[in-house]
C-alpha cells in the first residue's frame, strides 16, 4: 500500500500572536514551530496502515526549508520518504497548496492520502477537499475512525452533535481529527533512523486565487466586573447576566 501524508509546520498553539511589520503575517520573533497537531494523527494513521498492509509512507510538505522539520517529525514517527514543495516565501494561498500537492500526488499514484483536518494557523480546512477534487478522488474530512478493507473504506466523521458513517473506495483522501488514534512518541531508534531518510525537493508554483490584504488583532475587551469574595456574589452575577447582559 502506498500512502501519502501531507504535513505542515505551524506556530505552536501556545504562541501569542503579534502582527509582523508587513501587516500581513505574524511576527515570528520567539515563535516555536511544530508539526501541525492534526497532522500527527494523519502520520500515525499512515504508519499504522503501512504496518498492517506493508508498503511505504511518503510525507509531503509545502513551504520554505523550515518545513523540512515537519517531514522529519513524520520520519521519526515512521514515514519513509519526504518531498518538500519548496517555496521562496511563506506567502501562498490554499489553492496554490492544493494544486501543487495534487500534481505531485498524481505522479505518485498512492492508495491513501492523509491530511490533518486543518492547519492550526490559517484554519482554512480547505486543502484536503480541494486536493481531492483536483485529483478527482473522494474525500472524507474530520475523520475519527477509519477502516480499510481491500479497496473499500468506511470512515466515521465528526459532525455537530454526532457522527456520520461514510463509505467510499480507494484511492481516497482522508482528513484526520483528534481521536482517530494516539500518535506515537518517537523512540531513540526511530529518531536515529530518521536521520538517513531522504527529502526530495521540488519547486512550488504559485497560482494565487485569494490574497491576504491585512491582519489585525481582535478588539480587546474592557475590564470586566470581577467579584473577589466568592459564593456570596452569585445572586449579583445572575442579576447582571439577566438585566445587563440579557443573556439568560
Amino acid at each position, binding site marked *: 500500500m502506498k500512502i501519502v501524508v501531507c504535513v505542515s509546520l505551524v506556530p505552536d*498553539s*501556545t*504562541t501569542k500572536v503579534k502582527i509582523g511589520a508587513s501587516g500581513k503575517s*505574524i511576527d515570528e520573533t520567539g515563535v516555536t514551530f511544530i508539526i501541525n497537531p492534526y497532522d500527527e494523527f494523519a502520520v500515525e494513521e499512515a504508519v499504522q496502515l503501512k504496518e498492517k498492509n506493508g508498503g511505504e509512507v511518503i510525507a509531503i510538505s509545502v513551504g520554505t526549508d523550515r518545513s523540512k522539520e515537519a517531514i522529519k517529525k513524520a520520519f521519526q514517527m515512521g514515514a519513509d520518504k519526504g518531498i518538500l514543495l519548496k517555496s521562496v516565501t511563506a506567502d501562498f494561498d*490554499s*489553492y496554490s497548496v492544493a494544486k501543487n500537492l495534487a500534481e505531485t500526488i498524481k505522479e505518485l499514484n498512492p492508495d491513501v492520502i492523509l491530511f490533518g483536518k486543518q492547519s*492550526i*494557523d*490559517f*484554519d482554512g480546512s*480547505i*486543502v*484536503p*477537499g*480541494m486536493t*481531492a*477534487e*483536483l485529483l478527482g*478522488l*473522494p*474525500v472524507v*474530512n*474530520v475523520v475519527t475512525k477509519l477502516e480499510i478493507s481491500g479497496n473499500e473504506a468506511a470512515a466515521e*466523521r*465528526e*459532525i455537530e*452533535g*454526532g*457522527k*456520520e*458513517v*461514510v*463509505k*467510499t473506495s480507494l484511492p481516497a483522501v482522508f482528513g484526520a481529527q*483528534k481521536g482517530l488514534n494516539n500518535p506515537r512518541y518517537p523512540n531513540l531508534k526511530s529518531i536515529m533512523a530518521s536521520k538517513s531518510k531522504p527529502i526530495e525537493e521540488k519547486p512550488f508554483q504559485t497560482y494565487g*486565487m*485569494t*490574497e491576504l*490584504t*491585512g*491582519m*489585525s*488583532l*481582535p478588539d480587546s*475587551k474592557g475590564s*470586566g*466586573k*470581577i*467579584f473577589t*469574595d*466568592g*459564593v456570596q456574589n*452569585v*445572586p449579583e*452575577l*445572575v442579576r*447582571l*447576566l439577566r438585566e445587563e*447582559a440579557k443573556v*439568560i
Partner: protein
Amino acid sequence: MNKILIVAETKDNIFKSNAFEAVTTGKHIAETLGTGFDVITVTDASDEQLKTLGKYGASKVFHISLTELNSKSPAAGIKYSHSAIASAVSNFANSGGYEIIIISGTAFGKEIAPAISVKTGSAVITDCTGYTVTDGKISMKRPSYAGKCNTNVNYTSGKIVITLRPNVFKAEVSETGSEIANVSPDSLNISAADFKTCVTDVVVSSGKLDVAEADIIVSGGRGLRNPESFKLVEDLAEVLGAATGASRAVVDAGWRPHGEQVGQTGKTVSPSLYVACGISGAIQHLAGMSSSKFIVAINKDKDAPIFQVADYGIVGDVFEILPALTEEIKKIKG
C-alpha cells in the same frame, strides 16, 4: 441575472438556523452589490418548510429533491452523498452563471465547499465573520490562529465560494414570500460517478447539544479536580439549556470527549454566553472562546488569565459557586 447563490442546509428536512443566517447575509451582500440572489437546497423538506426561506427574504428557492438525487446512486440505502450534492450545486451554479456562492460553515458546508470551488473555478474563503464591499468587490474578514488574529482576504479570480461561521451573522425576518422551483438531477447531469462518498448512517450522540451550535456553553477545566465533578458543570448547563464544553487539559486526561474541547485544537466557538469553570485560560483555550459575546469566569486564582477576557467573574471555589449558581438560576427561571 442574479449573481449570488446561497446554499441552504436542512437537518431532518427542517432548515437549520444557519440557513436563515446565510439567506439574510446573502440578501445584504446582494443589496450592497446591486444584484439579486437565489437559494438552492438539496432536501426532502415539504413545500411549506421550503417556503419558510421566504420569511428571510428569499424570493426564489431552487429545490433539488434529495430522494430523487439519491436515486442516481449506484449503492442502495444511502442517506446522502456530499460529493453528489457538491456536483449538483456546482452544475447548477455553472449553468446559472453565479459569481458568489454562500454556504454555512457547518460540518456539511465545510465538506462540500472545497469541491464546489474547484468545480466552479472559484476561489474559496472559509469561516468568514464579516465582509466589506469596495468598488463592487467583496472582501472577507476571517479569524486565523483560532481567533488570535483576524485576516482580511480578497479574491483575485472572478468567482468566489464563501463559508460563513455559524452563529455570527444575524438572521432577519423580511417577509418576501418564496417561489419554489424544482430542479431535477437529470437536468444537472448527475450520474452514478458523482457518488464518490456515501453517508450510510448518522449517529446522534444521546440528544446532547453540540458546543459548535450552542447559544450558551458551560465549560469545565482542571479546577474541577476529577471527572465526576463535571456533574456540577452539567447541572448548570441543564438549567441554562446550554452545551457542556471542556479545556484541552481535561480532554487529554480522558475526563471528557474530544467533541467538547474548546480551543485551538478543539472547536472555536462564539456563543452569547460562555461560562468557564475552573479553567485558568491557557492561550490556546482563550483563542477558541474569546469571541463569545459574554464571558463568565469562575476560578479560585484571581490572577488566572481567564479573568482578563471575562465580562463577569467570581474569584472563589467552583465547588461552592457552581451549585449556588445553578440554584439561583433555577429560582429565576421558576
